[in-house]
Every structure is written in structure tokens, then in C-alpha cells.
């Protein structure tokens, strides 16, 4: 009997532990107040501004430190900014927990798009139109960058870090060897893929267990088939994600999977473990479609290999009458959002301005970044990054990554469905219907 009681105890303990594990995720009341959290939005006389960001590693860390130090040493506002960097992967969760427990930092860096809109809707982002219009960064910043920092007609954030466009990196030596040149149209691109395939080289290096990596191909295909209008309409609830251009993009991807344009086991390769770039380094893959932050990755990993790299934007599709200058990407990458008011907001904004001061910008450029500044191309020396900026400047429109731009629930549906499209376990139609359903649910909830 005693034994039995002990067992019941053991079991109930185990059950209770389970639920508390769940509760950490669910209730999540008190897990962030561990000292390094925000100091709360009430100023307690100390005049301190807490600034959360993801600058844990160089060069991001150095850039932020430089900007914050500049502000702290030069400001006349009486405030000091304390930077609290957090590792990228846990940052979003940490921010959510902080906000839900009333410990939201006074200013924080984020990626714009759906989550930022969520923060703003929940009251953790203040409009900065007046400050912005009075500031000299108004003329400094690229228009498209300001566009991505705006929501419902107001400016909410200061973009500062990097212009990142999706485009195709390729191995120049390999292209020379097989007498290939940069493609003008999708048919050219497919011809290149076939040539590479014939020579036992995987055309595209892609690691899709991370899911957003495959979305790069999809977004570009959809934008070339139908432009951005179908997407914008679907987001506004006036159109559907089952529009022809989305289906065609999915079908093209499946066609490419079947033709062997992607590595074997594409859905199990992990981008975070660098399994896509490894294929490029081993020279078993010829091209890689991803954000242009890859220039920095290549250059840091091996300057020698970077010499071999060329870049071109996603080619046009000949039978489609769509503006091929449209780009998919982020103009700013990191956006500083403000959760304070009055004098404090002014000071925090001043600190954000410091991120765009000439000396910090020069420092960013030295470290391979492309700050979203008008005329930045003149400061760049690297030919690949120059091409990226030109493409961004010439773009009639720049769409932020779907998974970042869409409401989070819709983004998840998109990524999950698309991965199955890559795995040939779902048809594009099924995947798009699931995405549309998530969008419908979201709009219905919002309307309530």
C-alpha cells in the first residue's frame, strides 16, 4: 500500500510538472523579471532608457555599442541609454514575455512586419511622426525604408541596419567553366540549371528545414508571375491567396523539385547549421537564392571564396507582363520601436538618430552592412553589394518577406504548407487554401 501511494505521488508529481512546463509557455507571468529586464516605463528619477536589441555578436554588437556610446557622451537630454542585447533566437519570445508582464523596454529593435504591427496594436509602440519630420534623418533615409517602418499611415520605427534584397548568388568560376551567363529570363535560368544538373552539380543550394529559406523562391516566383497586387489584395482581404500567380509559383517549385534542381533531402537540411552555404563552399551547388546578408556571411567565412561570387536579381518571366524590377527584401532589417513618451521618447529618438550618424554609418559600411541611406552606393566599394543597392534603388516596389510581413498565424500556415509543397506531399492548391483559411480566420478575428 505504501508503495502504491509512493507511485501515485510520483505520478501526480510527473503530471504536475508537465502542466507547469505547459504553463511556463501558457501563463508565463514571472519569468522575465530576472534583473536584466527592462526598468519599466515609469522613470524613477534615474533617467535611464532601456534598449533591447539582438547585437550579441560583432559587427552588430559594435555598431550598436558605438551608436549608444555616441548618444550617452553627447546628449543634453540627461538620459542614459542602457543596451541589453539578446541572442536572436530567443529574442522574440523574451520580448513577448516582457510585454505581457509589463516590463517592456523603452526602445527595442525588431524586424518590422506582422509582429511589429502586433506590438503597436497592443500599445507597445508610439508613433514618431512629429519627431521624424523635424529630424534630418527624414531626408537621409530611403523612402522604401520609411515605408517599411510605417503602419496605418504613421511612422513608428527607425530603420538602421541593413538593406537586404533577395537575389541569386552564383559561382562565377563555375559559370565560366560551363560557358553560362547571367540569365535575363526564367527560361534562361532553367537552361542554366539543366546545364549544371548535367554536370552533376546541384543548381540551387537550399536548406529548407528552416522553412523561410524555401519561401524566398516562392515569393520571387509569385512576384514575377503576378506582381505584388495579388499579394496586397489578399492581405487586405480583397483577394485570395489562391490567385493564379501563387498557384503557378508553387507548381514551378514542384517542377524544379522533380527536375532535381534542389539538393536531396532539401526539407531536412538546416540553414542554421549552414548546410546551404556548405554546398556552395564544396562547389557541389552552383547558385543560392537568399537575402543579400549572405555577402557578409561569404566574406567572413572566406574572403577568397567571396571573390568567386556573383549576384543577379531574380529574372523576369517572358510571357508575364509584370514589372521585373519589383524586389523582395527588407530595407533596414532592424527597426527601432519606441515604448515611451514625452521627454523620454525624445531622448530615445535621439539615440536612434545616433544609429544613423555619419560615423556609425561609415562603420557599418566598413563591416559589410548597407544602411538604408540615400546615396549609400557611393560609399560602397564591393561590387556585389553595389549591385544589390542598385537593384533596390531601381525597384518600383519592395515587398517585405512574407513570413515577416504577414500576421504571424498566416505566416506559419504559409511556411508549413510551402515546406510540404517542396516535399511533394501537398499540392500548391492545398497549401494555398490552408494559407487563405488562416488569413480568413485572422480577418474574421480582427473584425470582431
Amino acid at each position, binding site marked *: 500500500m505504501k*508503495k*502504491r501511494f509512493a*507511485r*501515485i505521488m*510520483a*505520478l501526480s508529481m*510527473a*503530471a*504536475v*510538472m*508537465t*502542466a*507547469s*512546463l*505547459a*504553463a*511556463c*509557455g*501558457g*501563463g*508565463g*507571468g514571472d519569468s522575465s523579471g530576472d534583473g536584466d529586464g527592462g526598468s519599466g516605463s515609469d522613470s524613477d528619477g534615474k533617467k535611464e532608457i532601456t534598449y533591447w536589441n539582438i547585437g550579441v555578436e560583432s559587427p552588430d554588437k559594435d555598431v550598436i555599442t558605438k551608436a549608444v556610446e555616441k548618444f550617452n557622451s553627447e546628449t543634453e537630454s540627461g538620459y542614459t541609454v542602457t543596451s541589453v542585447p539578446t541572442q536572436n533566437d530567443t529574442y522574440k*519570445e523574451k520580448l*513577448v514575455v516582457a*510585454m*505581457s508582464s509589463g516590463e*517592456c523596454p523603452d526602445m527595442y529593435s525588431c524586424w518590422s512586419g506582422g509582429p511589429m504591427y*502586433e*506590438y503597436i*496594436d*497592443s*500599445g*507597445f509602440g508610439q508613433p514618431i511622426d512629429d519627431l521624424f519630420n523635424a529630424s534630418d534623418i527624414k531626408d537621409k533615409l530611403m523612402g522604401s525604408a520609411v515605408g517599411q517602418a510605417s503602419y496605418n499611415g504613421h511612422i513608428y520605427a527607425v530603420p538602421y541596419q541593413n538593406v537586404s534584397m533577395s537575389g541569386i548568388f552564383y559561382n562565377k568560376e563555375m559559370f565560366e567553366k560551363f560557358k553560362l551567363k547571367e540569365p535575363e529570363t526564367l527560361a534562361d535560368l532553367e537552361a542554366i540549371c539543366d546545364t549544371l544538373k548535367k554536370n552533376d552539380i546541384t543548381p540551387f543550394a537550399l536548406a529548407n*528545414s*528552416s*522553412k523561410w529559406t524555401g519561401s524566398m523562391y516562392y515569393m520571387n516566383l509569385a512576384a514575377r508571375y503576378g506582381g505584388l497586387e495579388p499579394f496586397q489584395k489578399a492581405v487586405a482581404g480583397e483577394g485570395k491567396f489562391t490567385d493564379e500567380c501563387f498557384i503557378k509559383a508553387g507548381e514551378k517549385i514542384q517542377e524544379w523539385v522533380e527536375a532535381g534542381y534542389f*539538393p*536531396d*533531402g*532539401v*526539407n*531536412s*537540411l*538546416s540553414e542554421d*547549421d549552414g*548546410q546551404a552555404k556548405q*554546398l556552395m563552399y564544396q562547389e557541389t551547388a552552383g547558385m543560392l537564392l537568399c537575402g543579400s546578408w549572405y555577402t557578409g556571411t561569404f566574406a567572413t567565412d572566406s574572403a577568397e571564396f567571396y571573390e568567386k561570387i556573383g549576384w543577379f536579381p531574380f529574372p523576369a518571366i517572358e510571357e508575364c507582363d509584370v514589372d521585373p524590377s519589383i524586389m523582395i527584401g527588407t530595407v533596414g532589417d532592424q527597426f527601432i520601436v519606441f515604448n515611451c513618451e514625452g521627454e523620454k521618447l525624445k531622448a530615445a529618438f535621439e539615440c536612434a538618430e545616433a544609429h544613423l550618424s555619419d560615423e556609425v554609418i561609415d562603420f557599418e559600411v566598413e563591416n559589410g552592412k548597407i544602411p538604408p541611406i540615400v546615396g549609400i552606393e557611393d560609399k560602397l566599394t564591393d561590387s556585389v553589394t553595389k549591385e544589390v543597392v542598385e537593384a533596390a534603388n531601381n525597384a518600383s516596389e519592395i515587398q517585405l518577406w512574407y513570413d515577416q510581413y504577414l500576421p*504571424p*498565424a498566416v*505566416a*506559419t500556415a504559409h511556411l*508549413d*504548407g510551402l*515546406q*510540404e509543397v*517542396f*516535399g511533394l*506531399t*501537398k499540392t500548391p492548391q492545398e497549401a494555398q487554401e490552408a494559407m487563405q483559411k488562416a488569413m480568413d480566420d485572422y480577418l474574421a*478575428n480582427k473584425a470582431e
Partner: protein
Amino acid sequence: MNGTEISLEKLRQRDTRRVAALFLAPVAILMAVYIIYPIVDTFITSTYQWNGISAAKKFIGVNNWKTLIADSSFWIAFRNNFVIMVLSICIQIPIGLALATFLDFGGKRLTVFKVIWFIPLLMSSVAIGFLFTYALATNGGLVSTISGWFGGGNVDLLGNPKTALLTVIAVICWQFTPFYMVYFMAAFTNIPYDVFEAARIDGATRGQYFWKIAFPLLVPSMKSAAILSMVGSLKYFDLIYVMTGGGPGTSTELMATYMYKQSFSTFNMGYGSAVAGGMFILISMVSLITMKILNGKEEA
């Protein structure tokens, strides 16, 4: 004389209670703050439509629970958990028992095996996840390379929705079998040596000793091991999160990963809490039923 004795005993009892309360207080407070309060709060949160950050929570009563019951994704996740549970029990416990028996019969000579077999349990789940992601990678991973030697193509176990779950289960078993090995080794030491000697003197072979004597004596340990394994599999999270993130598609989605996604990735804290509450109820139910069945047999 008598009167003083009684009052002394009473005094003693009172002291014991006081001391007991004093010693239990820290644990009780910790449990209340970190376990009971979050559980209650989870259930309360599950009645709201809430994105997890906004001050505005909308009370929607049992709507989240209605959605949960009709949510096929949740039930697919539960089914995946169930598959993990059944296979974990069927694989880990017999192998763990076999290894423990082998070590028990072998004595000190086999200490080296004991140490080697114990290693997987010492590694963190995240490290194991990375280890196997690399070993199973189609890009020069161990399995694909060996398959290449024999003229086969790349083997994509994690990227294929049909094999992904089974592959992850194999890794989970690799990780946790040593735990049951140690568990049964401890159970073996609980069987007095006299029992073994008596059986040998009566002419039992080692096989007979194991099946007829040791095995029945180990049954209670096996039952608790099964329950531990069951609860562990139903709340499984970390390895899946590292290795597949629930993918490809949703083929390895578990209740816990689904809860995490709902709460943090899609800003649906209210619904995430309902998922957590659902998990709590389901796990408690499955555990209680199993307990009932196991104990019923014992008493019969």
C-alpha cells in the same frame, strides 16, 4: 506518572507537526508559486482571446476549448505523441531491461559497457538533436555516406514526412534507453542475493532464474518505468524542436511544439493556453487510466 507520559507524547506530536510544517513550508511555497499558480493561470488565460502582450484581453468563455476540440492539428499532434508513447514503451523498456540483465549477470567485468551505454543520457537534448541532424543529413551525413558505399543514394530520413517521426523516435529511444537500463539495474540490486543462491541450489539455470524469479520481482519496477516513459513521451518537446521544428509540414508536430507555436510564434496566447490545458487533461487522463489498469491487475 501516566498523565505525564501522555502529555509528553502529545507535546512530542505537536512538536513534530510544527517541525514538519516548518520544513515543508519552503517546498510548499515554491510549488504554489511555480506549479500551482501557473496551472490555474493557464486555465484562466485559456478563456480569453489574447495575443499575449496586449493589455486588452477579451473574455470568450469556452470558445478556445471548442476550437481545440475541433482542431485537427491538435489531434494529429496528440496522435504523434501517442505513437511516440507506445513505441517508446515497447522499445526502451525491453532494451533497457535486456542491457540491465546483461550487466547484472556479467558483474564487474562489464563496467566499461555500463559507462559507454550510459553516455547518451548525459548529453543534453539539444546537443543530441544537433548530433543526429548532422548524422542524418543528406549532405555528407553518416547514414547517407554509408548508403553511398553500397551504391545507394542519399537517404533522407528527416525530410520525408513518412519517416521523420519514426526517425525522431529512434533518436529518443537512443537517448532514454540508458535511463531504463540504470533504473532496472537498481531494481536488480533490490533482489536479495539469497534469492539467487536459493534458486541456483535448487538447480535453476540462469535463464530459468531470470524468467521465473527475477522477472516477476521486477514487474513493479517495470510498471513505474512504463508510467514514467508514458508521461515523458506525452510532454515531449526539446528534441523535436531542435531536429525538425515539427516539420516537414506538420508530420512531427507534438502537442508541446504546437502549444509553443500557438503561444509565441503566432501570438495566440489564449489558444496556446487552451492547448496547454488540453495537454494537462489528456496526460492526466491517460496516466490515471493506465494506473488503474496496472494496479487492478496487481490486486486481482
